[in-house]
């Protein structure tokens, strides 16, 4: 077992454990903090996959913005510091069954796929992912359309969210 594999196993286990705590702990601020831990684990996985830029972006977007937004929303929508009531609904076992079945199904499907245990080839030297990304995002034969559509999507989200949450009647 190589060092990389050991790091993967530790980080992967920590990520999954944090994710489990996200969906089970009752205090929502704690759940949001566990989400931060899980997403940080995912960022480490990106660095293992040689996608450093995405790892940094993951931290900037998820921990710096989305987690903060979640905590703000939790603080805005509760009356007391202690949450009342159960964390899970009464049909949670059906949800658990669904999740287990999904996982089993995915694992079964993947396991039958020929490229399943592929290993990666080395990154060519001088390969700069950010520059490649910039080229892909702006080249007319690349992803210009998704690039511009993303900004329209963000605009729509901003307008929609502002209208929804705070439309003064």
């Amino acid at each position, binding site marked *: 077992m190589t060092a990389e594999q050991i790091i993967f196993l530790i980080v992967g286990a920590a990520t999954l454990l944090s994710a489990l705590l996200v969906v089970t702990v009752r205090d929502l601020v704690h759940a949001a903090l566990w989400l931060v831990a899980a997403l940080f684990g995912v960022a480490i996985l990106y*660095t293992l996959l040689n996608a450093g830029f995405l790892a940094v972006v993951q931290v900037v977007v998820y921990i710096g913005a989305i987690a903060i937004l979640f905590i*703000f929303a939790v*603080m805005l929508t509760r009356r007391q510091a202690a949450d009342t009531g159960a964390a899970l609904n009464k049909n949670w076992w059906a949800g658990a069954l669904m999740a287990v079945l999904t996982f089993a199904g995915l694992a079964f499907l993947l396991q039958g796929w020929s490229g399943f245990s592929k290993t990666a080839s080395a990154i060519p030297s001088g390969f700069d992912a*950010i520059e490649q990304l910039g080229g892909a*995002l702006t080249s007319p034969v690349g992803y210009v359309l998704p*690039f511009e559509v993303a900004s329209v999507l963000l*605009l729509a989200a*901003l*307008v929609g969210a*502002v209208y929804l949450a705070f439309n003064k009647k």
Partner: protein
Amino acid sequence: MNEWLYIGLFFIVGLIIPVGAIGVAWILGPKKPNPIKQSTYECGIEPIGEGWVQFKAQYYIFALVFLVFDVETVFLFPWAVKLGQLGMFAVVEGIVFILILIAGLVYTWRKGMLEWV
């Protein structure tokens, strides 16, 4: 991969130092808790209720606008890196991208959502 190992080491050492400092302080400092000392500080007045107050919805609005612009700049950084090698077309693309999001800011502004009160 290698460079991220160093960053990881930085994280570890960056945690060891404050943990060590706080740990040493914990060992050296006296520990005599009492209920008055541990009560929540509210300028001498008895604390009433939980440590939670009604928040302004405005905090959420600012976080929301921030989130949108944060994601936007993530798209713009690769664009800026590559810009020196690209033609006018790419510059115009980036400007259109920014203008679309500025429109969102203007909408929020016009709706009066950027006012604090």
